């Protein structure tokens, strides 16, 4: 019964790993793997010698880092606030709305954002009418671009990310709160000394596991929002590999960048799993 899955995985996951040898070759498609000449670490030296290339790594770290922090805090705060709601129907309707963006693709949302963030779009009109601001060039200016990328990612995922916190909030023993009430603790004190400590293990798990993803800035999102004007501050490793590799045809160099990312990512994930196991006693299976 395992056969189909084993074969498919071998073909589509393990064979490409073998293809990584081209990271050490001057790969020419017409010569193939066997006949292309070996050049050792030249691609890697090139990666770290060009300022533009190093900039791509920085962009990835900055964008992914900001997403990681926002993506941890926003769902947590939202889950805490939603937990204070007593009316079940109200709670359910709020959840229905905030989970929705998670299921829409960045193509759809990219299309909507391009429309709304245009210089004459809805958001600039709103800012102009309420605060009298000049139109902002949201997607054409590097710093604004990063802000848009991080904000829209948090906007898309905070609801869905809150599910895990809501589940652990539901698991807190109610008698703890009863005891605190008898002792005269108000809601703020209860939250601070019961709820937050109870959530710390799951926060550590979510935080460490997303640390393993620090080199993933979000290809789908960036690719659908960016344009040549913001390559300097918006290009991440994945979009760079796509542009240089498939569009410009530098297969070997791109594979080297991809390999660099995979190795660093792998090491980080292993460390993160170890840390999650050590500090929060968490295992995936």
């Amino acid at each position: 019964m395992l056969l189909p899955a084993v074969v498919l995985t071998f073909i589509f996951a393990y064979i490409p790993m073998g293809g990584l040898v081209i990271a050490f070759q001057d790969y020419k498609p017409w010569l193939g793997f066997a006949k292309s000449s070996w050049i050792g670490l030249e691609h890697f030296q090139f990666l770290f010698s060009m300022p533009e290339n190093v900039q791509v790594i920085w962009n990835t770290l900055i964008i992914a880092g900001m997403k990681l922090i926002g993506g941890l805090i926003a769902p947590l705060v939202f889950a805490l606030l939603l937990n204070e709601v007593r009316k079940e129907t109200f709670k359910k309707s709020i959840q229905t709305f905030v989970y929705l963006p998670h299921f829409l693709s960045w193509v759809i949302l990219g299309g909507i954002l391009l429309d709304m963030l245009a210089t004459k779009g809805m958001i600039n009109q709103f800012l102009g009418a309420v605060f009298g601001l000049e139109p902002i060039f949201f997607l054409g200016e590097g710093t604004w671009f990063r802000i848009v990328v991080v904000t829209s990612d948090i906007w898309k995922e905070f609801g869905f990310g809150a599910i895990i916190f809501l589940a652990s909030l539901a698991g807190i023993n109610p008698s703890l709160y009863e005891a605190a009430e008898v002792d005269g603790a108000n809601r703020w004190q209860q939250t601070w000394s019961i709820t937050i400590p109870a959530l710390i293990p799951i926060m550590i798990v979510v935080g460490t596991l997303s640390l393993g993803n620090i080199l993933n800035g979000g290809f789908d999102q960036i690719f659908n929002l960016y344009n040549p004007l913001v390559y300097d501050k918006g290009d991440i490793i994945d979009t760079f590999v796509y542009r240089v590799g498939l569009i410009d045809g530098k297969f070997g160099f791109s594979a080297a960048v991809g390999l660099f990312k995979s190795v660093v990512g792998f090491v980080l994930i292993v460390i993160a799993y170890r840390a999650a196991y050590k500090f929060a006693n968490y295992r995936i299976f």
Partner: protein
Amino acid sequence: MYHKTKPYKVFTVFNYTFLILLSLLCIIPLIHILAVSFSGKAAANANLVGLFPVEFTFDAYAKTLANENFIRSLWVAVQRTVLGTLLSMIVVILAAYPLSRENRSFKRRNIYTWYFVFTMLFSGGLIPFYILIQKLNLLNTMWVLILPGAVSVWNMILLLNFFRNVPRELEEAAFIDGAGYFRTLISVFLPVSMPAIATLSLFSMVGHWNAWFDGLIFLTDHEKYPLATFLQTIIVQQDFSKVSVRPEDLENISQRTIKAAQIFIGMAPILIVYPLLQRFFVKGIVLGAVKE
């Protein structure tokens, strides 16, 4: 007791207001795009549309549905979603069942588990993957959209954990009645795991419907684009060279209301399956929580 204190009541009012605003924030962009799609061309181009249509008309939808390229890519997307979900679920179910067995009865279980999990941690990356697809002659076929993602390791782990909670007595009873492994999987495990299988199928469907990147790089023949890829090139990249258009159609494609209509049709199936999906995954979390 704290429910009755004055500061908490003030907080509750603020909290409810804030949460309502937050959920509005999540759907306002969708309402805006819907309003644009139903508005007149002139009003939309003059940016007069907010959350309600101005000069209400079905014009944009009529033009979108008359567009051959759009309909063709819609059909490709439907085929891809149905075939892809079916194949992926079959492969995942077949693999999850043996992997859910205990180490005693399936000695190499851990080796196989790691064989699959490793692919989640490390990958060859885009370029070697592209070269492989090229060598396999899969460019421009439907298979390239369906086969590579068929083994979803994540779904497999979720399902094998679900299978593990099925009482072993049920399985033993089936064996005593003379059923083999296949028979047991089909008549015992599948029926009791319906909530999990429904959830995973729906996740897989959403994934296939939304996928656009594989279409963009592996289908050079633009007539084979699924809807998500078609929308990506037309609306996001605004690259009209990839669809065969006559000059007189060009204005039709670039018009703002038509783009809005296309975006809305692109997310319509998700808006339809979403309520179903939500009911199931909330159930799944509850099931997970009461697990002994």
